[in-house]
């Protein structure tokens, strides 16, 4: 039964019901409310047995989780932004060792310039670290995903990141339902590790592997993630059956039937996007939206199926790969190869800039007028960047690439492409 809760608190309470035995915490905005709440739950004895470890860095947080998980304990932590990057080495290690740790990432931009607000640069920077990456579209889904994440992690013996937009979800105060404790217990069996540090049955974990077997080890990691493509929908289905609520899964479509234009996005922007879709549908536009909820593993086949009916695709991203463009759109493009669908990448909401219905409408109007470039930066203050670029041009001669960027921005030779 729902109550008016902050997203962070709902996640914390849900995590507690998953009975983690070791929780490590290091403060970083906007993740702090989650671990603060968990420390209270451990302190009050509501979450027991559980060791709440205040570590000295995110690197240590993940390392403690690695040790705990390898000893057969269900381990959890949460972080964001710089913290996630500071963990990077340990993240690869946790997945390499096949340790089913679950971590909440309260997505936040990466500095410099330092910026505490939301975008997806942090998680996207670590998309190749071997973790499964789930993106929640709402706080409710974020909470629910954690229940599924522990089950998924332990089933595949792989670590799972649950990404929820910092502030937008973590700090939003809404009617939310914390998954019922009994239901969680029946959905999530006790952790049976695939390997455990135990004097009664000793093993050596973390051997050095040379060229003779390294490729195989990496391939097996890939194969395990692909297996997760089957696990994730099954777990989502089972969750819906047990909790009476649809949450998670690989992806979900919104009003895609008969849609010419389909906007693909990850995370909390989906709510606003759905309203925009409704509004344009009312004006007769054939438009729909698709939420990617599992970015790693990437549901190529499912996405291809969902988009193949459309005539053009817009990938709305909260991060981008400097010097190239879209990150998600690269994978989408690969998934759609051969279909010849025009694909536009729209980079939006960087460093906490709000993605509003108005800006989305404006962008889609550009699209309708065929004025939207392949790479579009939503609400980019063109005057500012042009002034800066011109200033720079006086000092350094730009190569063709810089020209192209300007063209992308529609600054040079704007108009029908």
């Amino acid at each position, binding site marked *: 039964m729902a*109550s*008016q809760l*902050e997203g962070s608190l709902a996640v914390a309470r849900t995590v507690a019901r998953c009975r983690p035995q070791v929780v490590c915490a290091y403060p970083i*905005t*906007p993740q702090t409310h989650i671990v603060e709440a968990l420390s209270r739950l451990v302190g009050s004895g509501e979450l027991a047995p559980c060791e709440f470890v205040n570590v000295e860095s995110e690197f240590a947080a993940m390392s403690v989780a690695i040790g705990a998980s390898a000893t057969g304990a269900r381990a959890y932590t949460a972080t964001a932004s710089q913290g996630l990057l500071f963990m990077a080495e340990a993240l690869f290690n946790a997945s390499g060792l096949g340790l089913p740790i679950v971590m909440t990432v309260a997505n936040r931009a990466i500095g410099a310039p330092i910026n*505490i*607000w939301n975008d997806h640069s942090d998680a996207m920077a670590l998309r190749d670290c071997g973790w499964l990456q789930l993106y929640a579209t709402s706080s409710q889904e974020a909470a629910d995903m954690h229940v599924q994440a522990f089950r998924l992690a332990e089933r595949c013996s792989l670590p799972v990141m649950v990404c929820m937009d910092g*502030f*937008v979800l973590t*700090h*939003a*105060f*809404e*009617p939310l339902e914390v998954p019922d404790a009994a239901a969680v217990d029946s959905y999530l069996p006790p952790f049976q590790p695939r390997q455990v540090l135990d004097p009664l049955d000793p093993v050596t974990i973390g051997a050095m592997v040379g060229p003779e077997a390294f490729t195989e080890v990496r391939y097996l990691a890939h194969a395990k993630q692909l297996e997760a493509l089957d696990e994730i929908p099954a777990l989502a289905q089972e969750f819906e059956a047990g909790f009476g609520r649809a949450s998670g899964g690989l992806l979900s479509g919104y009003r895609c039937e008969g849609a010419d234009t389909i906007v693909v996005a990850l995370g*909390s*922007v989906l*709510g*606003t996007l*759905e*309203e925009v879709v409704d509004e344009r549908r009312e004006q007769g536009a054939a438009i729909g939206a698709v939420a990617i909820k599992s970015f790693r593993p990437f549901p190529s086949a499912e996405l291809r199926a969902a988009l193949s009916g459309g005539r053009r695709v817009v990938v709305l991203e909260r991060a981008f790969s400097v010097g190239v463009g879209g990150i998600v759109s690269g994978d989408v493009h690969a998934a759609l190869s051969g279909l010849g669908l025009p694909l536009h990448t729209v980079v939006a909401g960087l460093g*906490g800039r*709000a*993605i*509003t*219905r*108005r800006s989305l409408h404006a962008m889609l109007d550009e699209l309708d007028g065929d004025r939207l470039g392949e790479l579009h930066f939503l609400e980019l203050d063109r005057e500012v960047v042009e002034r800066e670029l011109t200033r720079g041009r006086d000092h350094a001669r730009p190569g063709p690439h810089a020209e192209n960027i300007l063209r992308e921005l529609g600054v040079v030779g704007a108009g029908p492409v």
Partner: protein
Amino acid sequence: MFEVRIHGRGGQGVVTAAELLALAAFEDGLQAQAFPSFGSERMGAPVTAFCRIDDAPIRRREPIAEPDAVVVQDPTLLHHVDVFGGVRDGGFILVNSSRDADALGLGELLERHGPTRLLTVPASEIARARLGRPIPNAALLGGLVALTEIVSPGSLERAISQRFNGAAAANNARAAHDAHVQAAAQLARRAAPARTDG
């Protein structure tokens, strides 16, 4: 959907105000979404919080650009921040002040919105009297409820008692009640027809 935007400074309980309002709406069986305009929380810095109230689940997650109501917890912001930006004609405006709209230089705004749309209440004074501290948020909510009737006074009281404990809960409830009474009185006076006879 009814959208409220609350302006104040860090330490004045701006975010709490938005959450209390949402909680009250939840008590009334409505859907509500409260969220801050996220800045690094510093005492005294301008802070904005938002609250949406609707019958249907709320999906949009953008800041409120065109509020149905604006609450100004600190009149000193009037000259620094565009607190009334986007508020529609006829939208509700509640300012924390012991002075009236004219004294605050809001006469023209009062004209545009009409007498039953713009109020000032001495929330800080009320809070000082009830809590011993000038934390105006609860009182302002009392005034807002009187002004907009978006949630029921009882739900606001329940929200306050959920959010605060013991004396704090009781005192904030009283502060809200006082402000509610004062605001209601003002509205009543303004609604009353003007006398012609001496």
